[in-house]
């Protein structure tokens, strides 16, 4: 009681108001942070907080009463704010009808794939000396992506591998980087002179670690779902993923590979689906799953020193705003 009345009393002396904890009035220019004494400041802050809470509760009750009173005519509830709602509008968001983008995409490096002139052929490899988990992951990944081959790295330089791959007609190169026995990075390079994307890979689950999984994926060409790739950068990355799979999916196989982008994290899943009815579909997860986060996108094939980077993740600028996403 003494403490309560002390700071309250002094505040009253400063401000000239009755020290009632219930209704505390402050002049508009006063802020709790101006009190130099920490104890008093803390006390005043708590009182202010209580007051805020009371006001909020009262407002909420009032609103609820009004809503009940109006019944059917009540205004609709306010939409809660989510990070996706509050996302900072990115000016490079692609409009579906944008002609410039359409023209760009008709003439970029993936045009031959989308015009069905080339059939994707993928080479999957790892960094030096892969450990068991990475090797198994590579195998599973190659079972998911049709027409893909796994080769051991054996200390070869990427810059030398790439011309050989181009000579052997590969269209894409995937390098899975490993650290401490788990895969943690992915470099995806479109071969005949295409862009190279470097991702950070996390949450890798092999087939046996997925609960309630199905059987092995078959050889059928899966469908591809690309979700939420809205910006221009997202579009290019999405096209890169799409060009890994052959263009015509075999619907008999009922397999679908999903790349879902949420807040700049790309989740990869591989499912088998079945339509139970027109409105219900059941999905069952097979195949590995992993999450990717784009670190850099480079224009040519893999060249870390002299390459021209289209986009690099700059930590200090891009990580500060929690509502701004780039993909």
């Amino acid at each position, binding site marked *: 009681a003494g403490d309560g009345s002390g700071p309250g009393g002094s505040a009253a002396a400063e401000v000239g108001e009755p020290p009632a904890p219930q209704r505390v009035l402050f002049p508009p220019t006063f802020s709790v942070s101006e009190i130099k004494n920490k104890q008093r400041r803390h006390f005043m802050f708590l009182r202010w907080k209580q007051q805020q809470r009371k006001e909020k509760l009262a407002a909420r009750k009032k609103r609820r009463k009004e809503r009940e009173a109006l019944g059917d005519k009540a205004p609709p509830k306010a939409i809660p704010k989510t990070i996706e709602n509050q996302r900072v509008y990115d000016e490079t968001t692609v409009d579906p009808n944008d002609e410039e983008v359409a023209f760009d995409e008709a003439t970029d490096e993936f045009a031959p794939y989308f015009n069905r002139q080339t059939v994707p052929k993928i080479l999957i490899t790892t960094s030096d000396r892969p450990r068991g988990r990475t090797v198994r992951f590579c195998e599973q990944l190659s079972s998911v992506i049709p027409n893909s081959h796994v080769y051991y790295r054996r200390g070869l330089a990427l810059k030398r591998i790439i011309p050989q791959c181009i000579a052997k007609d590969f269209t894409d190169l995937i390098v899975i980087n490993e650290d401490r026995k788990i895969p943690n990075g992915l470099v995806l390079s479109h071969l005949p002179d295409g862009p190279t994307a470097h991702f*950070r890979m996390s949450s890798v689950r092999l087939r046996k670690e997925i609960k*309630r999984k199905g059987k092995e994926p078959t050889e059928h060409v899966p469908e591809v779902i690309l*979700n939420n790739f809205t910006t221009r950068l997202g579009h290019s990355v999405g096209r890169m993923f799409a060009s890994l799979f052959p263009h015509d999916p075999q619907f008999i196989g*009922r397999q679908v590979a999903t790349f879902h982008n949420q807040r700049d*994290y790309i989740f990869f899943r591989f499912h088998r689906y079945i339509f139970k009815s027109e409105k219900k579909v059941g999905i*069952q997860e097979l195949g590995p799953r992993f999450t990717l986060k784009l670190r850099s996108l480079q224009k040519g094939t893999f060249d870390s020193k002299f390459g021209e980077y289209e986009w690099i993740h700059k930590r200090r600028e891009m990580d500060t705003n929690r509502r701004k996403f780039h993909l």
Partner: protein
Amino acid sequence: CFPSQVVWDTLGNRQFCSYKITTKTQNFCRNEYNLTGLCNRSSCPLANSQYATIREEKGRCYLYMKTIERAAFPRRLWERVLLSKNYEKALEEIDENLIYWPRFIRHKCKQRFTKITQYLIRIRKLTLKRQRKLVPLRRKIERRENRREEKALIAAQLDNAIEKELLERLKQDTYGDIYNFPIHAFDKALQQQDAESESESDAEAEEDDDEDKREFVEADDSDLSDFEDMDKLETSSEEEQEEEEEVEKKASHPKSKGKTPLKGPARRKRPYIEIEYEEETEPTTKTKAA
């Protein structure tokens, strides 16, 4: 007594030498001018008034020599000679400079020079190969990214999103004729009037499309009804698509009928009234991956 002998008697054997490192089996000498690296009477640069070494600096090898005449001038004690880059020529230069010197020193100098050139070659070769760059992980950033990834995963609601997308595709007819759900508006209206739960009997009862059966079998045995067939019936009137159990028994028929699903020439006639259920696989494929 020779001064070198005195030095050896004190430092080498009896008293403390700061360059000496003793291990269980051997004594080493840390002196930078030492020729062999061991602590011996003949290898100690302090205990020999006439001594020579090879040292390399920035990839070039030098021959250092010490003679008795300069023992009084510590600053000028060690004479340095740059050796040629050519291996044989350098060996000759060593021979020239150390002519009339004890055999041991000459021999050891040449050995040391050989070793040094070998490791310099190795360094040059390694720098040409790929050099792995170690990037340190930052704990705070890793933790932050993992947390954000979890939250993004929850916000993504992947299963729902995938199901929605698949149903969208079904509605937009991308699957064409494989699935036998009546997708025309008239039937949709009918179905909407019906209850939510569509059992087989229900569906069969309300279908007026001359379909005999409703398959909840993995898109197998899909009978094409007449009116759905209209656009696809160029080849024959009553051909039906058949997707066998290859979808289930993958091990046995890996690619037997894996050609174009819809209009491939490999269609087979089937008896019209036949309802097949694959019991063993149905339950598993019907469970949702929650």
